[in-house]
Each structure stands twice: as C-alpha cells, then as structure tokens.
C-alpha cells in the first residue's frame, strides 16, 4: 500500500512551509500533493517557493501533484485554476471547476473534496481522464469496497483518507475572521495563529470541530490503524496522510511500518496516543455509527490478524 501526503490545509509561514516539504524529501511516502486548498488569500505568501519544493520532491523520487482550491468563486481564482492545468504536473481537482480547463482525456487526479459516491461517477471521471481518486472521507467501508472494484475495472487507483483532521465543510465565510470581528476581505490572516486549526468546543466543554479560515475540520484526527487490512483487501491502493504541524515525519514512518506489517493492528493507534496524548482519534466514518467514533477502545495493541 502506498502513502500519499495530502495538501497542507493550514496557513503556515513560508519558512515552516518550506522546511516541511524539504523534510518530506527524506520521508518514506510515495506521493505528495502540494499547493493551496483552502484559501486563495494565503497563496501569495509562499507561492514563489512552490516550484523549488516540487523539483526537490521529484528529485527525491516522489510523485508530485498540484491541488486546486476547494471552492473557486473569484475571477482570480478561476485564472489560478486554469493556469494549474498548464503547469506540466498532474493536477488534483478539489473543485469540479478545474474540469472546464483540463482537455478531455488528459490525465488528472480527483481529491477528497469532490463528491465521488458511486460507480457511475467513478466511470464518468475515468472516461474523462481520472487516473487516481481519493474518496470523500464520509464514505463507509462498504461503499469503499464497491468503488475500489469499479475503479479497478477502469484502471483508476483508489485512495482513502488515512490520517488527520477531517475536512468537514467549506464556506464562503471566513470563521477565523468572524471570530475576530473582521470580514473575510479584511481578515488580517487570523488563521495563521493556529497551525493545526483552532479547537471548537461545546458549551459543556466537549471538543467537536476545528476552524481553519473558510474550512471546518473535525476535532478528532482520523486514524485508520484498525481498517488498514480491511482497506487493502478491498483494493485500496493508497492512504492519504494529512499534514500536521508537529511530528509529521514520524507519523509517516509509523504508517509506513503499519502498512508494511511491521506494526500490528492497534500498535499504530497506541504509538499515536503516546506521542500526542492530548489529541483524539476517530475512524467512525469508515466503520462506526458516526464520524467521531473511535474503535480503538483498548490501549493495548491487539494481535495482527
């Protein structure tokens, strides 16, 4: 099973951004999706460092894909999206707008923010040129199985959200700006203070979500420790790991060891708990009753099947 690093969802300083991608050249991942997913206003701060980061990753033997924005509305965002198609690197579409610019039959990837829920959609995307699809995180494992089979018949690789805060919603409104009493146009980049998103808790103190500018994420970090074997058997070819500010290289390494069978089921979750005792894990979208659920009730690693 391969590992793909998804696009960074947060607003990091250009220095942090650069060192993150420089570190990834040393990692054991197979593929890196790079670029701005959430907010076009962030892009000017690190845009000029993207080409260098791309070539270093390519030199290190990684596949590199460029992401589109998740929600394209403004004129300059349309232009940006059209330009991506001409960059000579595979594009991952996270807003269908990009299809207006990618010539029919030209290869592309589909990101988790495009609604791919059924075989007809997989077939249509494949006929249009899709070579790889990362499924929406809310899909249950039963759907993943059906779609992996359909994709296999069309020569399309299927990827599943493997780790990280789940992208739950995207909006025209910026919540970081709203929280600070500002409008989106005058946001003063409030989201920069929260490199992993800002925790949102209920009035009785229960964590529920995280805000990240115009995006809303889950409070918990998705973790597929308990589903990796199930997903592999279903024909899923890659897991997507979503960047986080601390300990990401180590996290990639843990997943590599888990998919290679060095770590048994449960050991990955346990290691995660040891390293980050304050974060909550979830895998409910795949196998639970709701997205927030976590099936690793015991702290003891269980035996590999």
């Amino acid at each position, binding site marked *: 099973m391969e590992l793909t690093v998804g696009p960074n969802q947060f607003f990091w300083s250009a220095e942090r951004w650069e060192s993150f991608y420089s570190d990834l050249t040393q990692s054991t991942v197979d593929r890196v999706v790079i670029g701005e997913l959430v907010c076009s206003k962030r892009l000017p701060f690190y845009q000029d460092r993207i080409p260098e980061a791309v070539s270093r990753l390519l030199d290190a033997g990684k596949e590199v894909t460029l992401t589109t924005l998740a929600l394209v509305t403004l004129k300059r965002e349309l232009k940006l999206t059209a330009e991506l198609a001409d960059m000579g690197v595979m594009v991952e579409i996270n807003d269908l707008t990009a299809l*207006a610019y990618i010539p029919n039959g030209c290869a592309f990837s589909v990101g988790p923010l495009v609604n791919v*829920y059924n075989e007809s*959609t997989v077939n249509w995307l494949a006929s249009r040129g899709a070579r790889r699809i990362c499924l929406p995180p809310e899909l249950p494992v039963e759907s993943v199985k059906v779609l992996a089979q359909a994709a296999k018949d069309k020569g399309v690789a299927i990827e599943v959200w493997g780790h990280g805060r789940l992208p739950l919603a995207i909006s*025209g*409104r910026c919540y970081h700006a709203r929280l600070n009493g500002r409008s989106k146009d005058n946001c003063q980049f409030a989201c920069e203070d929260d490199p992993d998103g800002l925790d949102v808790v209920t009035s009785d103190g229960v964590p529920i979500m995280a805000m990240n500018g115009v995006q809303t994420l889950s409070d918990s970090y998705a973790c597929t420790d308990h589903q990796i074997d199930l997903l592999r058997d279903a024909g899923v070819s890659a897991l997507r790991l979503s960047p986080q500010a601390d300990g990401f290289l180590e996290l990639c390494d843990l997943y590599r060891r888990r998919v290679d069978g060095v770590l048994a089921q449960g050991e990955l979750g346990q290691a995660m708990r040891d390293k980050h005792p304050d974060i909550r894990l979830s895998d409910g979208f795949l196998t639970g009753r709701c997205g927030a659920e976590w099936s690793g009730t015991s702290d003891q690693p269980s035996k590999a099947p």
Partner: protein
Amino acid sequence: MVMEIVCPAGTPAALRAAVKAGAHTIYCGFNDETNARNFPGLNFDRTEMRSGISFAHEHGAKVLVAINTFPRAGSESIWHHAVADAETCGADAVILADLGLLDHTARNHPGLRRHLSVQAAAANADVINFYAETFGVRRVVLPRVLSVHEISAINAETDVETEVFVFGGLCVMAEGRCSLSSYATGLSPNMNGVCSPASHVEYEEDDGALDARLGGYLIHRVERNAPAPYPTLCKGCFSAGGKTGHLFEDPVSLNAERLIPQLQKAGVTALKIEGRQRSKSYVAQVVRNFRAAVDALDAGRPLPQGMLARLSEGQAMTTGAYKKTWR
C-alpha cells in the same frame, strides 16, 4: 418577464396550498433517500407525485422533482428508478447533483429537462457552462455563498438560467460539500438526505431553560421564553479561542425579499423558497408574500412590506451572502 417563484412542498397538501397561493413552480421529492429532505412523514409516493403534478398542471404551475442526494455505491438503481418515475409522472424537470446521475439521465432521458441542484455547489460561470455543455443542464440553483454582484457576473457569462434562494433556512457551508452532520450523527445530506436529523435530536427542559443536543453534543441552551432554533450544527453556540457564541452562523434564516429588484437586475430567472419540511400554512404565507412582490415589481409598483419574521428560525433574518459583508 415576471420572476418565477419556486416553492417547496413536503406533502401533497402543501403542493396544493402552494399552487393556490400563487406559486409558478413547485419542487418536491419522492419519499426515500433520493431527495435532500428525507424527513419522517414527508414527501410523495409515486401515486401522490402523479396526482400532484396533474393538479399543478391543471392550474398552470410546473413541478420539479428533486433527486439531489448522491446515489449510494451498489444501490444506484434506486436513483435511476426515481429519475425514470419522475419522467413518467410528468415532471417538468429533475433537480440533480451527482455527476454519475447527471450522466445517466442525459444519456437515458434526454427529453427530461435537467436542473443542477444547489447540492452541486456550482459557484462560477465556468463550471456552470461545463455542466451545460457536458450534461445539457438548463438551469442552475446557485449556492448560498455568492453576493449579488457575483451572481450578476455569472449571468453575464452563461446562458444557463439561474435560480437563487430568497427565503428560509440558510446553509452557511457550501451545500453538498458538508459532512458536519454525519460526523456527529452518521447521517448526512449527501448520503441520506438529512442534516442534523430529528432522530438524533434531544431536547431537555430544565427549569425553563431548553437544552438541545445533536448526537449527544450540546448545540445550544436557551433561557426561558427565548426563541429556540433547531439544533443544526453550523448554527450552534460554541467556544473557540476564549470566545463563546454562534461561531459559524447565528440562528437566523434567509430573507432576501428586499433584494428582489437587485436580483432581477442581476439576471436571475427564478426565486427559490426553502422549506419542504415546513407546513402548508407556512408555504402558503411565504408564497403569497413573494408572489405579491414579483408582481409588484413587474407592474412597476413598490414592493409590499414583508411580515414573515415569525415564521423564521430564531425569529431573526439575514440577507446572507448576497451582501458581501456577510463573509
């Protein structure tokens, strides 16, 4: 040209009430997971759909059938049957969101008019034209994230008719791209046609204060006699960064009544009212108001003053994203 009033109907009785109150067009859905308002006790079986459409046609109104959830892998035939049945029942158009279902409908039901649901969140002219060229989409329901200015710019660049929401519940998030509900309850608009479903809602009245929970999460608590919004996740009262309040959206509902003249200038074809889950009394009152407004506009008279606040969630209203400062 009078702007078209597109009105919701959750039941045959609401459809008849809407037609009688002056709706030009009614939208409704089958009583299963194929439509985005799959609520207990709502919607139409096949017989009701056929007679509802006949009733509307006899009174000169149109009926659009919403089949706007995303078909479940392995069970797509449920959605395919819904499209075929809508055509047989005489629907004037189907409202679709899913790429695969659009493709299926364009190939197998070429004569059936196709509208793009708000659940597809098509928010710019290029993607709208893409849907038109690829699947023959004739009308798009615009997501509630756009300003009037942006709507105007879209209409300048597309021949596809645009329909915009003017009244009712307000999604803060881009529609069809939100899984907050399934994160907390396991049921989502995209997969199950429900958001913050009643089956996962618990109310607790405690000494006059009312706690509303969704999937066990406390969404808000209101004091005695204060208005009580429905516990929708994006309109909850939460804390972040040391601040507490309605961090995403206040419990308000959309009322763009006053913006109708601007929306007409922006090239909008149809005005959509949200609320297939609301009663026929609500539907009739709202339709009467909006029909009076578009008729006044067409005749060059000033708009009548609206009296719709009591029908609204939390009894407060907003013009939403249509005014750019909302963002």
